[in-house]
């Protein structure tokens, strides 16, 4: 069982590597944030898989990581919404009021 859990952990880590490729390539900031979110979920999975091998304390770390990953994404959206602080619902889509990131291609 120990061997198997390590094997699955390696597999999840490999899939995180793929997500990091997307963080690297982008192209848009939202792509990078999304892939970072995947790294967060994968990190939670890795901690879950390793928990039975130690003393289950890793679950507390997993809980904290799940919380932080969610807050990081909310922080990203708050920071990139056009007025810099507001709710994304405030701006109608299709009217990017002076946003940066134009001209970046689509993958």
């Amino acid at each position, binding site marked *: 069982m120990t061997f*198997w859990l390590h094997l699955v952990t390696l597999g999840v880590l490999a*899939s995180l590597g793929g997500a990091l490729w997307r963080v690297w390539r982008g192209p*848009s900031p939202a*792509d990078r944030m999304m*892939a970072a979110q995947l790294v967060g979920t994968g990190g939670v999975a890795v901690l*879950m898989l390793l*928990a039975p091998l130690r003393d289950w304390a890793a679950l507390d770390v997993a*809980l904290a990581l799940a919380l932080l990953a969610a807050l990081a994404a909310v922080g990203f959206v708050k920071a990139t919404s056009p007025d810099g602080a507001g709710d994304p619902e405030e701006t109608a889509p299709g009217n*990017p009021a002076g946003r940066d990131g134009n001209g970046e291609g689509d993958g």
Partner: protein
Amino acid sequence: MADLATVLLTAAGLCFFLAGTAGVIRFPDIHSRLHALTKADNLGLGFIAVGVALQAESWAQVARLGLIWALALLAAGTVAQLVARAALTDRAAAPDGAKRGSRR
């Protein structure tokens, strides 16, 4: 028996993680990639949580695994909407130019 179930469930979880990453790498636009990320990853996390729960020694560990998954699910559903919205305002991928019009 529990060990066999753990092996099968964690293997399924790993498959969904790999699928999520494959989608995030292969899918052509950001909103399609968000589909892959949100759905596949949380399903993978769910399978892994159930698989690991079968190895747990106490109810508290099972409950904690459930709490983590519930939190991840809630966060994924909310964050997917927020990032999808941010990507819309970001690149003016306006739905006005959508393939299909709005429906009633």
